[in-house]
């Protein structure tokens, strides 16, 4: 089947999509957008978090057909332009605080934090911990990510 959706502001089409495919597979393998990562394959780790019509979702749990006619934003679509000064405040905060290590959880976390701050511009620490409890990171020990969220909230 053909899937047509708006991805990062552009209308994109994918042909010969198998109905059992995930939105994550379509983004990564058919549309050349590897930002959302395939890590746990079952919605446990948050590494594939993208926006679907403005709602954060695990792209591995969304069937490709469910994206038909809808709007998808991935980590690649958050920065208004290229270059470090053009990055979104969440991306800049992750760089400045050293919240990035291997980088595999980072794209999903950045989308999740972007969403959190859109809903709650000044989250408390317990709110941050709760909001990001579905995004696993195995490297950082999470403290630097907390710092990044606090910094992004005030920038």
């Amino acid at each position, binding site marked *: 089947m053909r899937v047509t959706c708006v991805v990062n502001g552009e209308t994109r089409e994918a042909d010969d999509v198998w109905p059992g495919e995930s939105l994550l597979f379509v983004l990564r393998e058919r549309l050349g957008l*590897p930002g959302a990562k395939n*890590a746990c394959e079952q919605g446990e780790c948050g590494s594939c978090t993208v926006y679907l019509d403005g709602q954060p979702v695990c792209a591995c749990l969304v069937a490709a057909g469910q994206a038909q006619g809808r709007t998808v934003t991935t980590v690649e679509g958050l920065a208004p332009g290229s270059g470090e000064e053009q990055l979104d405040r969440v991306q800049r905060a992750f760089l400045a605080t*050293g919240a990035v290590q291997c980088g*595999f959880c980072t794209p999903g976390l950045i989308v999740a934090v972007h969403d959190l701050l859109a809903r709650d511009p000044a989250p408390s620490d317990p709110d941050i*911990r709760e909001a990001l409890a579905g995004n*696993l990171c195995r490297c950082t020990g*999470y403290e630097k990510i*907390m710092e990044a969220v606090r910094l992004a909230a005030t920038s």
Partner: protein
Amino acid sequence: MSPVVGKPVNRVDGPDKVTGTGRYCGEIVLPGLAYGLIVGAAVANGRVVSIDETAARAAGGVFGIMTHRNTPKVANQPRLIPSLAGQPAPGESFFPMQDDVVHYWGQPVALVVADSEEAAAHAAALLDITYEPGVPVATIADGRASATQAKTLFGGLMPATDERGDVEGALAAAEVTVDATYHFAANHHNPLETSVTTAQWDGDRVTLWDSTMGVRASQLTVASLLGIPLSDVRVITHFVGGGFGSKAMVWPHVTLAAMAARHVGRPVRLALTRPQSFTSNGHREEQEQRITLGAGRDGRLTAIRHRKLSVTSPFDDWAEPATGVSTQIYGCDNYLGDHQLIHGNTMTPTFTRAPGESLGSFTLETAMDRLAYELGMDPIELRIMNHPPVDNHGNPWSSDGMADCLRRGADLFGWAGRDPTPGTRQEGNDLIGTGVAGAGYPVAFMMPVQHARARIFHDGSVVIQTSAQEFGIGVTTSMSQVGADGLGVDMDVLRFEAGDTDLPNTTSAVGSMGATMQSSAVHNAATTLRNDLIAHAVNDGKSPLHGLSPSSVKVADGRMTSTLDPSIGESYADLLQRNRLLDMEALGSWTPPGMDTPHGLLTFGAQFAEVAVDKDLGLVRVRRMTGVFAPGRVLNPKLARSQLLGGMLWGLGQALLEGNQIDRQSGRWALNNLGEYLVPVHADIPDIQVDFVEVEDDVVGPLGVKGVGEVGQVGAAAAIANAVFHATGRRMNELPMTAEVVMNGGGPG
């Protein structure tokens, strides 16, 4: 002091990661790429009787199916040797699909290659495989009677027994003894990126994009198994999504990817699924450790007996060495450490973060806490009193810092005035306790010569190259810092290239040795090039520096100036352009000291934890942790702090959450996904504090770097367990300390 080493510089690979544009090894775009999927054995012991491929071949998009009937025979099966030794480093001394025998559950028995991941998964499900199953033995409970004393570990590299003095005599004579036995569940690494290899042939040459912790180890192993020259195997790795030991040794899927690409005549990507990452890249083995301490009433240790029993594969005498710290962190004349092995139906276990010593130290450090209670001594003073100035061979430490770590940690944590009586603090339903543990991790020396290249172009821009890749620890950043200072240029004009076997050799970044080895080679390359450039200038009649002694020339921002008169000088670029040199380069090398270097080599630290234990439900929450470490020169505190925090959280996971067991009937791992194998999440983290004790070390390398990858984890679980005892008055003899263990297990101290 140099301008950028030691500064909290931002990661140079950060922008690629926060924008999602960095390409990991499973994201390489190649025309005609096919997707491989391993089919694992559904029995743990037995034989493949038949494989009917009819339905699978009829499914759409299938390019090929490999089984033991058509998989090429390997040319040379190397023996297991740790990846940092610079030799082929197979995860196990076994290659699958060479015959019909099944040794462990999940062992590859077929490989399907198709035009998409989904098509490969569909065809794999249609393979009809029948087995003649045998009875598996895969657990300590089933294999205890067959346990034997290991002679050596790691393919013969290390002795399995460490003995001195008369431990039995000293225990019999000891005024105070402590005896404790622990059971530890198996752990899995679970990096967010599962292992993946993309293979592409060009004639007789193969290129592998491999999610490895050591491109050189992958190259050596694949070349040996395929029987082709090293020059025909190129391994490239620019981004790796975490490793923690699972990507240190080279597992069969790497070579299977190359075989599959040749089989179907297309480039092939072969990724382990998350469930396969529990059965295909090693694990920290299920183990039992028993420790017996003997001491005088004054607190001096007189005897330590430390024994480990664990399950390994049919092929290899693998055990995490558990006694490398307990033999030396506290002085004791009478010592026995040894390892017993059960050869069972599992794959060969492997390095898992803080290999061996995280659990070895757990055993020692909880026993030291018991001893402190037996003696009525403060556990910090007991440790400091027993920590010697020399190692178990009488060699002085290359650098120490243990006592300072304990004391500074005590200040930061607020240890003073603690009432040691267990079970006395309660807040609502929670029993509150605090605990401490010492930490140590060996600095390992058994590596080949390390190389790096520094090259400057006539516009003043610089490239520094070495083969060992970035996998999250920050080498791209810290080596850029080391190269910039060594050469005397700004970081902005320097690019660090790595992750490619075509570049000069450095060894796998494992065992906390990446920073030490690479920084030594990079430093030597950069300073050699600096010295060559200065020599060129002072010998050049047209240079303003002509005739000066090289020692009276200094460099900053790419400009050489006289130390006597800073107005006299010229830039590297001016020198090169005037001499019509398009570039200059230098190879730096560093020969690591041997294992017989006459120094004690441990990285020291101290860990503190406060826990709240729900007295009705047995739930343990860690409320705060303090870790203080003495890792020698810290190249970049922003990176190092994050590494150590991550290690401490691994200790928390090991203490409370992470554990897997093999089902005794089927021989199959009970858990195989991140929904059931629990790792710490944001909501689990306590208030964590990390600090450093500065120690200078001129033995471990020219920059004195001892590494931070492992020591952050060591002692963390022990501090938590000691805090649980302080809270509850009960000793936990199992990890992880789940609610069931806390409620039902353990016993009085």
